[in-house]
């Protein structure tokens, strides 16, 4: 049976090249203040440096654009 995770919250998953702690600081500057992002996390131990975002009503390309602007590669991982 399929159940809703939580109303309105959407989870987006991206492959990035966020590698180091100092990269994380840059990313944090963008994601922390974003009004539509409720939670985010980068898995630095994974090959794909996966960025996971919980948000309300945000489009993947908005995240991609913002990360690219500060010099990171970012692409949505297909489910």
């Amino acid at each position, binding site marked *: 049976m399929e159940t809703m995770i939580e109303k309105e919250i959407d*989870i987006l998953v991206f492959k990035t090249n966020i590698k180091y702690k100092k990269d994380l600081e840059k990313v944090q500057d963008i994601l922390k203040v974003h009004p539509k992002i409720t939670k985010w996390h980068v898995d630095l131990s994974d090959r794909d440096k996966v960025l996971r975002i919980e948000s309300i009503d945000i489009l993947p390309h908005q995240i991609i654009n913002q990360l690219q602007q500060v010099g990171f590669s970012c692409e949505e991982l297909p489910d």
Partner: protein
Amino acid sequence: MRVKDEKKVVAIKEKALEILVNKGFDGLSMQKLAKEAGVSPATIYIYFKDRDDLIIQVALEEIQKMLEATLKGFSPEMHFEEGLKLQWINRVNYFLKYPMQAHLSEQIKYSPYYNIVFQKMDKTFQKTMGEFVHNAIKRNELVKLPLEVYWSIAFAPLYQLVKFHTSGRGLNRLEKFVLDENMMDQTLKLVIKALKP
């Protein structure tokens, strides 16, 4: 809007358990797990934020199930002998029925993950076992000991016998070892004798 696919979550958790038991903590990567569970890495990341989160969630769930099984039919008011016997039976039954889950619980217990798992664990089990021990001491059925000493006498013999049994070999690696009911009764009698005031 994203919907939760329970089948996929179950497949991910089952495969993670298998890899952790067979290959250890370092043997588990999200990429490998995705391949073996037949899902995309993105799917795993929808439910778990990283490898540690996954390990902790899987371990927590399995340990919780194990502790629930251990408390089946048990009450902290039980006479010490009767209660300990039921504990032994419940634990043995669980270990033999779910050897992989039992193995994972042991792995976790002696890893850095255990602190976090312990914090998140429902404390009903600890509470119940604590009451059981206190009642038994009060009724003069059990000698008062530091908790670790009590545990080592009350349960470690059983856990070691189960390890021999699951590996199929005893101390002499050449001979087959099977833990039977007589052997368990014999050991339990000695344990109870040791713990009597």
